[in-house]
């Protein structure tokens, strides 16, 4: 392997099994005798439970057990608050099964376990729950007013958290300003909508006392810790496996969903495997969502467009509970100044309880909202001051010699300071300017208008803090029989290609083929230190941990091979699965090196013969293993970032709005993107394109709707629209590669990048297209046909 694999467009190791239908998703795992769970869910957004009658369900043929809050022992608790923060008091989290009260339509009230899912659902319908419905307020702005119905009596004005952050000296900035731009923006609620809904299966082995849980989670190690703690089991007796998972996008990082506790509990109780496979409606009414925020943002600027202070206040809808703390709002607030210098910032938010599905991160996690706020405000500032939209940004972008650019006073979601580490912000802006054809556009726009067509140019810039700590680890072992390299890490994958990009990193260090590096992730039985897959952190945190580990194993391999080949370590190179003397033909395969480093008593093959304690090659003075040595070629190491690394990008679009159908067509879309060094450009493009598609959905189609009583009204794929191939335009994706100075590989995260700026870009384009028809600003996404209709028919 003399060609470097890092940076190469290597095909993915995992694809064949998926293409042949041989993936192993939770519901594919054969569990003989498995029983099936179904839930009774609240039909009210807020109600007291007066009584529950389970007798008919329990007597139904084929039913094994019916659970309510009264017979779930240690699970009748408020589930953990995952990320505590000083801005919250008495943060409310959900109980696995409701006790006394329900707080949103879809909240779990009872669980039935039966011989199959059909019977379990029949029986769930037989459970009678007597509810006393209570008043609700669904409107976010109304919910914080005095007198609004409360979700939790403990929280006046429904405020779950109130947090203010200051960077620089905002008052001085306000005083210095010659102009203030003020706008209000809103982004509506959406959902991850991974194609595989959530699923949990569990089996308890009474002989070994081991509980195995298969879970679509993005955080198997954390689920293991929580399960062990709540069920009072030894951590080593709980194994959590996230097998193949059909997309995550954040929804699957939350723990615990009720089923993640109740299914293992039932499996232990009933002595038989149990599984729960969420259906699509349940995914809409029971699994986390995100996005709704209303920002009131002000840019205080000089006449030349230089922004000297930013003030933002926003309401963040956290749904009925706040299990993930303020993470989403905190990411939004610390990203609010985007790629701009803006030295003085005052940003405050209130997280607000609403009687709806709880809110936790969905791909983007607050970034699309803050990007929408600052970028729509930048467009407005340009208009207010009579400046070009590119120019006003150019005048405020951080320049290359200003990195690292620290926003003192702002703490990111990892509790660490915001320090933008590197980038070529001006160059990226110039690239999008040229690629979208900005110079020629005004003439085109005018010509189109003459023909009754409405073209607009959209523009939005974003930054993305990625690669959050606290840490990840990697374990690498070269297998003594096959010479294949086994890599374990604590993350889990949902289709990002970890198995390939991590293999590329290792292949370069050990001189083996990418296909010969085999990654195991998402299994606490294989590796049980780590955090989770979220916040675009896998490549950065696990990638660097695996790189560091591979360096250690490389050192071990070279030392041992030099010994075997009787050469100096400097004379050894690793390639083609062997250690070679540089420039010569003498080599020893890695399998043999791995075997020879393990002092053996029994010889089972040729390489082993050479390694037995009786073989001349291993005869030396002293014990076969020196003090402090271990057998084999194997190591474990960790990487813990000092702070997040910041990727960024800028999007440009030419859109056409049809005033008759009120529809938007994307004529051209350019995405300039920089995530530092790219491990695999094809996989990076795939991540960016997938994010863009979710961005288009959010910009034009996706909105979770509730009626005034809190009933979800589009909880299915017929009414909640996510884009098919026919709704996604071609996108010209271009990269810059500015290495991050913060980690050895120079990488930044990419998972969330694509989706962040699409809403702002499309809104910017639509507003520009319709600027001659009433000048509506489109400060609200998704932009629906009725919004466009209202904009061009003001009455």
């Amino acid at each position: 392997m003399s060609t470097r694999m890092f940076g190469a467009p290597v095909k993915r190791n995992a694809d064949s099994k998926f293409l042949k239908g041989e993936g192993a998703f939770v519901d594919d795992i054969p569990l003989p005798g498995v029983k099936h769970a179904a839930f009774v869910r609240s039909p009210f957004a807020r109600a007291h439970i007066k009584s529950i009658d389970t007798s008919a369900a329990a007597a139904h043929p084929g039913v094994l057990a019916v659970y309510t809050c009264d017979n779930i022992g240690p699970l009748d608790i408020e589930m953990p608050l995952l990320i505590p923060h000083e801005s919250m008091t008495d943060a409310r989290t959900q109980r696995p099964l409701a006790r006394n009260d329900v707080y949103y339509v879809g909240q779990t009230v009872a669980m039935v376990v039966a011989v199959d899912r059909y019977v379990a659902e029949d029986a769930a319908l037989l459970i009678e729950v007597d509810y006393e419905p209570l008043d609700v307020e669904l409107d976010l702005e109304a919910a914080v007013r005095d007198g609004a119905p409360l979700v939790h009596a403990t929280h006046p004005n429904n405020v779950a958290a109130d947090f203010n952050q200051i960077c620089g000296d905002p008052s001085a900035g306000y005083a210095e300003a010659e102009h203030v731009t003020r706008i209000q923006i809103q982004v509506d609620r959406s959902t991850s909508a991974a194609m595989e809904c959530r699923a949990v299966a569990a089996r308890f082995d009474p002989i070994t006392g081991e509980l195995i849980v298969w879970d679509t989670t993005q955080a198997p190690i954390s689920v293991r810790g929580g399960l062990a703690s709540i069920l009072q089991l030894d951590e080593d007796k709980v194994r959590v496996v996230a097998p193949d998972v059909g997309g995550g996008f954040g929804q699957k990082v939350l723990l615990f969903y009720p089923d993640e506790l109740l299914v293992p509990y039932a499996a232990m109780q009933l002595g038989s495997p149990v599984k729960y496979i969420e259906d699509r409606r349940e995914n809409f009414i029971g699994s986390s969502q995100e996005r709704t925020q209303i920002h009131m943002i002000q840019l205080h600027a000089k006449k030349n467009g230089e922004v000297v202070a930013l003030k933002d206040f926003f309401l963040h809808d956290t749904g009925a509970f706040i299990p993930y703390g303020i993470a989403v709002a905190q990411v939004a607030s610390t990203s609010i100044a985007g790629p701009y210098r803006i030295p003085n910032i005052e940003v405050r938010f209130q997280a607000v309880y609403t009687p709806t599905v709880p809110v936790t991160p969905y791909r983007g996690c607050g970034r699309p909202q803050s990007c929408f706020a600052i970028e729509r405000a930048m467009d407005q500032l340009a208009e207010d001051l009579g400046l070009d939209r590119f120019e006003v940004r150019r005048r405020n972008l951080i320049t290359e010699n200003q990195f690292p650019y620290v926003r003192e006073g702002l703490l990111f979601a990892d509790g660490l300071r915001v320090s933008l580490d590197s980038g070529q912000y001006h160059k990226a802006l110039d690239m999008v300017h040229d690629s979208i054809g900005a110079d020629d556009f005004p003439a085109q726009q005018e010509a189109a208008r003459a023909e009754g067509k409405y073209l607009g140019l959209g523009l939005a810039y974003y930054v993305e803090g990625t690669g959050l700590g606290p840490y990840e680890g990697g374990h690498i072992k070269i297998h003594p029989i096959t010479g294949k390299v086994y890599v374990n890490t604590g993350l889990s994958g949902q289709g990002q290609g970890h198995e390939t990009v991590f293999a590329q990193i290792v292949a370069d260090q050990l001189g083996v083929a990418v296909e010969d590096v085999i990654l195991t992730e998402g299994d606490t039985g294989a590796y049980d230190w780590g955090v989770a897959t979220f916040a675009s952190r896998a490549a950065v945190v696990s990638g660097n941990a695996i790189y560091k580990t591979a360096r250690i194993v490389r050192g071990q391999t070279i030392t041992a091979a030099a010994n075997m080949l009787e050469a100096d370590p400097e004379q050894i190179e690793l390639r083609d699965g062997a250690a070679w003397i540089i420039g010569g033909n003498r080599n020893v395969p890695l399998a043999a090196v791995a075997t020879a480093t393990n002092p053996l008593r029994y010889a089972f093959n040729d390489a082993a013969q050479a390694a037995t304690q009786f073989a001349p090659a291993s005869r030396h003075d002293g014990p076969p293993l020196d003090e402090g040595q271990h057998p084999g070629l194997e190591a474990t190491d960790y990487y813990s970032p000092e702070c997040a690394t910041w990727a960024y990008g800028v999007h440009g679009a030419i859109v056409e709005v049809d005033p008759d159908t009120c529809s938007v067509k994307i004529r051209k879309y350019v995405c300039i993107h920089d995530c530092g060094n790219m491990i695999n450009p094809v996989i990076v493009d795939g991540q960016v394109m997938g994010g863009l598609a979710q961005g288009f959905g959010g910009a034009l189609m996706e909105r979770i709707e509730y009626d005034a009583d809190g009933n979800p009204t589009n909880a299915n794929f017929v009414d909640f629209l996510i884009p098919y191939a026919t709704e996604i335009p071609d996108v010209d994706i271009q990269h810059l590669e500015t290495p991050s100075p913060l980690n050895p590989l120079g990488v930044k995260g990419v998972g969330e990048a694509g989706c962040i700026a699409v809403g702002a870009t499309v809104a910017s384009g639509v507003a520009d297209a319709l600027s001659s028809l009433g000048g509506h600003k489109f400060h609200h996404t998704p932009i629906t046909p009725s919004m466009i209709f209202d904009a061009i028919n003001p009455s």
Partner: protein
Amino acid sequence: MNRIAGNTAEQSADPTQLTRMTVNGETVEREVSVRMLLSDFLRHELGLTGTHVGCEHGVCGACTVMINGRSGRSCLTFAVQADGADIRTIESVADENGDLHTLQEAFRDCHALQCGYCTPGMIMNILSHLEADDEIDLSDEGIRELLSGNLCRCTGYANIIKAVRQAADTGNWNRT
């Protein structure tokens, strides 16, 4: 734990019906509950778990299989409705040695899958078109139209479009 097992019926009391069909060339015969979906039948009775379920209301296309040579939603079909039918699932697409079919190869070449959950349904849908006699419009728009019954939340479709074009161009299709 440690309790005497209850006297629970191990099966549901649903009425069943003897159902026979051909699945991937083999004849199968089973007593099935009259309300069992074809998707559940394939996945849980026959163990052909390559057919996935993404919505169970006919929108996502993850459950697409070939029913008598045309693509169809196995989540909108009862198993008993498929009595006498010829069903093909993703498990039949690669050859006996496990070597990928031209279309599968094209997906791999073009990075047309990420999590792989939508993939079997996509493949079965595309394959039904490639193998059928109808003209296929290989313009971007034409391919997008062809894919418009299958949702993918991961890829943004661009690479799937490339893969369809590559497969259509390179495949040796038995088309008349």
